[in-house]
């Protein structure tokens, strides 16, 4: 403990990392409805997984368009995307959204369906190579729509954030954020 204290600022929220995304922490920072706090806490890893799926799909398209996509790597990445999609879909199905979060929840369900449809489109890579292809156009439009949906569903104080800094410690996290906690 003494050695670690020499590394991290005493006020650094790294000390609270295990609890930071937990429901108790969310209540403590102002989510007064415990059911909403529990919902957001359970949702955080699902939201992150959705974000990563979107990033992988966009990344695969980017590498494909720039002729940099290694077939083996493409296969591995695509498999990983599908696995994450199955897992997050299961987790979302198991989640019970409280009253007041129903609309938010249904929005995320719709985004997962969009991600699944996007993954199917991404299977047909040969149709996506031509920059002018209608298939590519449709997929890019879909991915941008998902991105906008994720932005709309973001709840950064609860860790639902399109760009995640919540896991960063005092060496790379802004002072203002640490003071909030």
């Amino acid at each position, binding site marked *: 403990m003494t050695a670690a204290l020499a590394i991290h600022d005493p006020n650094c929220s790294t000390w609270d990392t295990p609890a930071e995304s937990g429901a108790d922490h969310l209540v403590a920072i102002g989510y007064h409805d415990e059911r909403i706090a529990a919902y957001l806490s359970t949702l955080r890893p699902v939201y992150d997984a959705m974000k990563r799926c979107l990033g992988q799909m966009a990344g695969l398209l980017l590498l494909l368009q720039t002729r940099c996509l290694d077939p083996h790597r493409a296969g591995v990445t695509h498999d990983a995307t599908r696995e994450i999609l199955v897992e997050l879909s299961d987790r979302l199905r198991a989640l019970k959204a409280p009253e007041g979060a129903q609309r938010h929840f249904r929005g995320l369900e719709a985004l997962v369906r969009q991600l699944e449809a996007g993954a199917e489109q991404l299977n047909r890579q040969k149709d996506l190579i031509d920059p002018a292809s209608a298939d590519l156009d449709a997929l890019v439009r879909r991915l941008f729509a998902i991105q906008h949906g994720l932005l709309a569903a973001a709840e950064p104080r609860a860790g639902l954030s399109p760009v*995640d800094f919540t*896991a960063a410690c005092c060496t790379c996290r802004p002072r203002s954020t640490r003071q909030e906690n």
Partner: protein
Amino acid sequence: MSLYSIYVLEYGYVPEYDKSGVIYGAHNEGYVKLPYCYAVIKGKDWAAMVDVGYNDKDYGKYLGNLFNVKDWSPPKDVLAEIGLTPEDIKAVFITHAHFDHFGNVEAFPNATFYIQKKELQDWVWAMSLPDRLRWILSGIDTGDILRGVQLARDKRLVVLDGPMENVFPGIDLKVAYDSHTWACMWVSVRNDGQAPSSDTWVLAGDLVYQFENLHGASKQLKIEDLYLPVGLATGSQFNLIMATEAMMKEVGYEARRVIPVHEARLGQTFPSRTTKHNLRVSEICLADQASSAVG
């Protein structure tokens, strides 16, 4: 002969940033100002940039607030200080894919963007990792990757597999693998056009944040002058130190020729002025027959 004028243009700043984020190991040593800047390389009829900052709309606004960024200004206003418009920019060298470097490509409609293949490949791979490893993705905005797809479709994204000499006359792109990020670039400008050159400037991207990374002092080691890595490495501090040595070697160990864009004291080291938006313009060097933008 000097081929290019080089400027470092501040587009925002964080008034108090942890010193430990800037210099590895500087724990509990307080805060420093952290300017957010991009560099401009301006030739006779041509201009390029090193990185593009981030866009203060949509989620960029939230990120800026999260990082307590002050006085953010759009490229239109920032570039006007040196007589350019975003439309004048023909090439952009993206040193790495963090949101504050790759987050505003839409503002430069006529530019072709250069980035490393490994930088993209490894971020995409990192997104497949389990949730508990998500720290690795700190600073990456999936929206930027999506906008990259659009650039690629428009044939405005050049993906490089390693260093490239003379990407434009006298301009070399170098790579530090697994350092600040997976494949972080720096830009060498041989301003006399010669190789080897006696007039090289290195635009360090985030491989060097501030002067202490080049001439640091370690309280722990009781050493007065040594390289100290920046506070954030997706790769390793070892690779950051070796990249610093490579950059210093290129400029004959004349440290003032390695330009750290997050360094507020560039304002005291090079001719500079502060704009009406409270942002700094630093003139690193001037091309032949070019007029000063800060005089």
